[in-house]
């Protein structure tokens, strides 16, 4: 599997939480944690899914009484 190297900056609170997870043994290192978090985020925030929800919002906002 080819890889792309990138550099990110984390808010300190988030970095602290990540370190706690690593120290507790949930992840071997910060790289694995970020890859897993990103993979999961992208799975549940697919473009077509977000677009469908926004289109539903438009329909609700315009026409549907709750």
């Amino acid at each position, binding site marked *: 599997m080819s890889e792309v190297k990138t550099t990110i900056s984390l808010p300190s609170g988030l970095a602290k939480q990540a370190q706690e997870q690593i120290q507790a043994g949930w992840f071997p290192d910060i790289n694995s944690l970020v890859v897993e978090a990103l993979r999961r985020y992208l799975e549940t925030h697919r473009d077509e*899914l*977000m677009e469908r929800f926004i289109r*539903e*919002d438009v329909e*609700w906002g*315009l026409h549907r009484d709750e």
Partner: protein
Amino acid sequence: MSEAVLDAGPLIHLAELEALDTLMDFSALFVPLAVRQEVERYQPSALTHPDLMLSHVFAPLPSPSLLAMGRALSLDKGEMEALSMMDHHPNAILLTDDSAARLAAEHRGIKAHGTIGILIRSVRKGRRTEREAIDLLRDLRGRSTLYIRPSLLVEIILALEKEWKLVPEKQ
């Protein structure tokens, strides 16, 4: 009038747009503790709007099925508490901008909508004119941290201008 359970996203985004008043016609606005804590961190002014009656509540413990779904979708604490509240207020509307939370809501038969829907709804509820709502949508990317694909936003604005029979403004 409907009750609503709030996740952090709409509170933060509407505060950024100075449009929290668009929530005023819900009969109750429930804010679970974890959601309140998240909003306090990122946009505390959202919790102190003078005309907004937010009910700060302790969410019930999530059901086993919700726990399993939360793990599968990597839902955060606020989203879990909001969904757990919805289990006890099935006729309420969940207000969230997170698509994973919306996916979970869909699976559980819960009505869920987000900031864009609230802004458009504000016209129907008489809180914004059609032009004001369009202007807020145009400002979304510049004034809020809500992420939306620019081409989709343009498409929505054009569709709304057509629906509301407004003369399109030049960009």
